[in-house]
């Protein structure tokens, strides 16, 4: 499977080393993606990386990816300017089960760049494609200026009630300080009627899930997005194996109930 060529229409720096690309398909129609799926992004000659889809606009047809520079390939992607091209293979994997949120309280819990794969969930609520009884977004980041989509977060208030927490901030910061599980624990979660989508560092997901379970959210109503090394994204290269599962085709979004014992094993 070879990449399709996409052109960068808009490039926005979220904060140093983290950027969002809005891209259009060079030829043909853009692919349709479900929230929570990912693409393999190819920086010419440098290689491919799996990156969650942070937006797939229905109206403008633009594919959106938000990327944090960590290695050679993401550094090469960071250097790309508007008008330049990259390769896209995908979309791959299983996304968020938005249908299940219809008659529930939706709790979105995101840490750092983990907000990126959840952005399409918020947008589907905003434009009415997705529905939930009510939605709360708990967003934790390192610092106020290291939050994704800072200029959009306030508009999201139409669809979600937003609770934010950062590890470090000065006195101007109106939100919480500390890990996101703090405010999560203090909130009144209607456990049995809640469905939770969680994405962030594994440690943060671990603690968030603990709070959710203590609040009476059933394991079958907790969904999380996992990350592993990937080369092919099609279940053939073996890299993303996680116990009996392949993150690329069985995930990246899993129901906690299905993976509960595996999630506890370190170095799996």
């Amino acid at each position: 499977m070879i990449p399709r060529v996409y052109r960068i229409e808009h490039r926005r720096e979220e904060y140093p080393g983290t950027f969002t690309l809005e891209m259009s398909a060079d030829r043909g129609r853009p692919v349709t993606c479900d929230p929570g799926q990912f693409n393999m992004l190819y920086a010419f000659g440098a290689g491919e990386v799996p990156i969650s889809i942070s937006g797939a606009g229905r109206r403008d047809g633009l594919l959106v990816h938000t990327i944090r520079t960590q290695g050679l390939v993401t550094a090469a992607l960071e250097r790309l300017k508007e008008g330049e091209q990259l390769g896209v293979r995908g979309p791959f994997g299983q996304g968020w089960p938005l249908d299940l949120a219809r008659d529930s309280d939706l709790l979105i819990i995101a840490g750092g760049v983990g907000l990126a794969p959840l952005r399409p969930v918020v947008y589907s609520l905003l434009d009415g494609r997705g529905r939930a009884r009510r939605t709360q977004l708990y967003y934790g980041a390192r610092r106020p200026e290291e939050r994704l989509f800072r200029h959009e977060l306030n508009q999201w208030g139409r669809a979600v009630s937003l609770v934010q927490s950062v590890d470090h901030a000065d006195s101007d910061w109106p939100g919480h300080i500390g890990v996101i599980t703090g405010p999560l624990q203090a909130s009144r979660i209607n456990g049995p009627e809640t469905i939770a989508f969680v994405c962030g560092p594994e440690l943060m997901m671990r603690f968030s899930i603990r709070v959710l379970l203590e609040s009476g959210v059933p394991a079958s109503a907790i969904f999380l997005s996992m990350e592993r090394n990937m080369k092919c994204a099609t279940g053939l290269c073996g890299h993303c194996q996680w116990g009996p599962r392949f993150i690329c085709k069985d995930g990246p979004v899993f129901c906690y109930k299905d993976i509960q014992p595996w999630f506890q094993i370190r170095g799996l």
Partner: protein
Amino acid sequence: MQDYVLQARDLDILIQVVRAEGFEVMGPVLRDNAIVYDAISTAADLPQGWTDEQEKGTYRVKRRNDGAYFGYAVGPHSWKKFLQLPHRQVWKARSNNSGIQVAEIVDEAPQLAFLGVRSCEMHAIAIQDRVFVDGEYQNDSYTRRRSNIFMVSVNCTSAAASCFCTSMDTGPRVTLPCDLEMTEVIEGETHYFLVGSESYRGARVLQQLPVVPSTQEHEAKAERAVQNAVRQMEKGPRNFDSTDLKELLYRNYESPSWDRVAERCLSCANCTMACPTCFCSTVEDTTDLSGTYAERWERWDSCFTADFTYITGGAVRPDTRTRYRQWMTHKLATWHDQFGSSGCVGCGRCITWCPVGIDLTEEVRKIRELEKINREGP
């Protein structure tokens, strides 16, 4: 299936007929003191009169006292090198003023005949078929190559000490479909192959051979020869009950046994390279000096390498303990959930080619014993 008798002196006719049918024949050859698979053009290329002696960490070829063509078990190579190429180009790309163009590399799939495929190896190929062909996505190169293969299988009549196919239910008798199935029989002055065909293509080849229909005596001798291999393995040190392996390993992710094997394992990846079912690969992206031409290559990879699980923040499996656990648990346990069968065919290559002599069957036994001690006390 009606069986026929092909005299051993006529084996070359079989090879020439298969070649005339348009296949390049791959078979066992003796090279660098090992029996490996490579192109052959006559029966004289085969390792006639040679056998292999195998134990953990040891492989030696030795003269037999007869002229058997297939009187060895398995060598370091497996047929996977012809199906899942060790190194192949996946795409090429150009970047210029008009943008990026990516073109797939469609490698030519040659018409190959595999001569002398053992039952364990047929199971290994079937396992790789389930990985590369039967899933949602295909490895196109493998799929094309696989569909061209003319398969001549050979029933095993002697087992190496490292063999345990009877424990994995994958041999020594060939049970999976092939084009021609052969059993080599040597008793005193008689030396013949019992041959049967299971496909139209196989029947076409068989028709062109100087064969006679087999008698009950021919068949009884062949059966005795295969039973000889069965007996060797059942009496051997690596005979074990594999029926509960998945449950055993699923219960023992935190067994202290993993720490002990990690003290010996070198994380060298030999077992994964020699294994006929290990399928992991990685990719390499390169550019030329101008930076306008790029290639992507795929090559075999191993779960024992440090960067195999690298993500931001480091390797998910940072040490030999977690890597050996992944390899063995994948092979014997999680494979069942992924692809509906074990990933091990009992060929013993990982035992023989481990430079420090780690024996998978021994490790299973240790895990079982430690679990028992922990449950019942010493």
